[in-house]
């Protein structure tokens, strides 16, 4: 079995997201980097699939050389192969990103065989375009369903059962493999790397491909801060002595049933 997960390096902001002076990017000077929680679950799922079915997992990212950090993190959790699609992605729109990733997957599959399952995050943490996985699936002529929070892979029957959370329940899909899924956080509980995993990840060879991709039709003009909600926080007390005042407030707001 071969599985692939695609991830994106993004800054990890705290209380506020600052923008660079030219308005083109998040000011990440004092920030660490990570991948979306959706993609963390994608990585974990691939590792679990390999534990269950054997075979190999690959992680791919399109981004700057620094994204090696995110590839090594995935490797420290148990992913065997890592691919960096190298590009300065500041002005890459979803069409171009998808076209470059689809080309790269075709290259990887021509060398080592098809992936039974490819996972994307449902949407990236930063730009949130909701489409790269779908465009890749269309190019590769594979089925895709988004917003997936449960996966059962049945290799003997070449199918994957996928569950999608909706208001008041879940929808069930059954796709023939090879298939692609857009996954969301809640799919599983990602593990933390072990010391042994961290050491092993340093030795994983990173395959570097140049990202090309056909020019897209969407561009960034500028990033903007949303209008700030101003609040004058009313301090209603300190410690346990505040309990009666809290219950007065509950009463006033009409939530004491």
């Amino acid at each position, binding site marked *: 079995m071969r599985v692939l997960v695609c991830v994106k390096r993004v800054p990890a902001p705290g209380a506020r997201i600052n923008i660079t002076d030219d308005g083109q990017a998040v000011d990440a000077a004092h920030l660490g980097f990570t991948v979306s929680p959706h993609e963390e679950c994608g990585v974990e799922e691939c590792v679990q699939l390999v534990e269950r079915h054997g075979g190999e997992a690959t992680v791919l990212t399109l981004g700057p050389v620094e994204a090696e950090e995110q590839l090594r993190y995935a490797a420290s959790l148990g992913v065997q192969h890592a691919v960096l699609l190298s590009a300065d992605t500041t002005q890459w729109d979803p069409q171009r990103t998808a076209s470059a990733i689809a080309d790269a997957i075709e290259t990887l599959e021509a060398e080592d065989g098809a992936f039974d399952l490819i996972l994307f995050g449902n949407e990236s*943490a930063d730009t949130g375009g909701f489409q790269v996985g779908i465009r890749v699936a269309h190019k590769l002529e594979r089925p895709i369903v988004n917003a997936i929070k449960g996966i059962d892979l049945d290799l003997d029957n070449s199918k994957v059962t996928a569950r999608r959370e909706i208001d008041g329940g879940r929808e069930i899909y059954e796709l023939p493999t090879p298939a692609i899924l857009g996954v969301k956080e809640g799919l599983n509980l990602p593990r933390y790397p072990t010391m042994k995993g961290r050491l092993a990840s340093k030795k994983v060879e990173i395959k570097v491909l140049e990202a090309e991709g056909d020019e897209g039709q969407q561009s960034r003009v500028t990033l903007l801060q949303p209008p700030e909600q101003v609040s004058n926080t009313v301090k209603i007390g300190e410690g346990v002595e505040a309990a009666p005042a809290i219950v007065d407030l509950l009463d006033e707001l009409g939530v004491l049933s």
Partner: protein
Amino acid sequence: MSDILILCEHDRGSIEPSTLEALTFARGAFEGDDLHVLVCGEVDDLAPLGEYGATAVIVAEHDMLRDFSPETWGQVLAQQIDDMSPEVVLACGTSRGNEVLAQAAARLDMPFVANVNEVADDFADDDETEVTRVQWGGSLLERAGLEADTKIISVTHHAVEPVSAEGEEAPSSTFEPEIDELYARSIVIDREIAEAGVTLSTAPVVVGGGRAVGSADAFAPLEELAELLGGRVGCSRAVTNNGWRPHSDQVGQTGTRIAPELYIANGISGAIQHWVGAMASKKILAINTDPDANMVTKADYCVIGDLHDIIPAVIEEVKKRS
């Protein structure tokens, strides 16, 4: 006058309120233009579409549209775009809305801009134009340029309240689209129905707990308080990552967006990704040891202190008064 094509989101025949959001947005942004609504499969009652401003309804009828599939809906929408060459294609930015627009855009190799709050003047008629859209789940905005004759966009879910236009029933027509049989592969095959009751997104009170709660067991007092107030327990990602609560309790960018009358945030620092999920709450009470925590400075009310002492005291007081 321009042609605006709007995707009707419905589940096995009942129209979703998100469709009415898309129509309300379209009425404001594309005043005087023709608002065509595309319905994939049968809908019980088409009247709300006209009521909310549709000028025409097009129903695609086909056996394979008996239930939802992103691929069948995407192919039908792509066909309709091809036939009509509308200036704008619009849906609400729900899971389904974004998914179907992306499916159609991929087939036509056209751009698709997700989660738009605002479009430029003359958006429909310009083939080089701009939108304002959300990034980081709403923590940041982006002005984006778009070069296309047909502009495919979704409008951010909950960015507009559906408002009736008190319109007449719109004239409707039907057609039979061509759907590749292969796409039967992604039709919904079954559903699991969750137990009824208040959910996190509809609860009138949410009692939230963060890393400071400390363990799964230590959520018991938060559960008790939530129950006393007819609400639900919510949590931060630090909590789900530790395995103390299921992900379905997580509030935030990659969790649930809540909008209760009151959100009581206990031991939660208020990272921006948590805040975007909580900011639609009518009132927020932060309980935190740190007076400078982001949650505290953004809340309507705060109590400074240890949640482990304060919550039991509040429970005691609520019981005393009932």
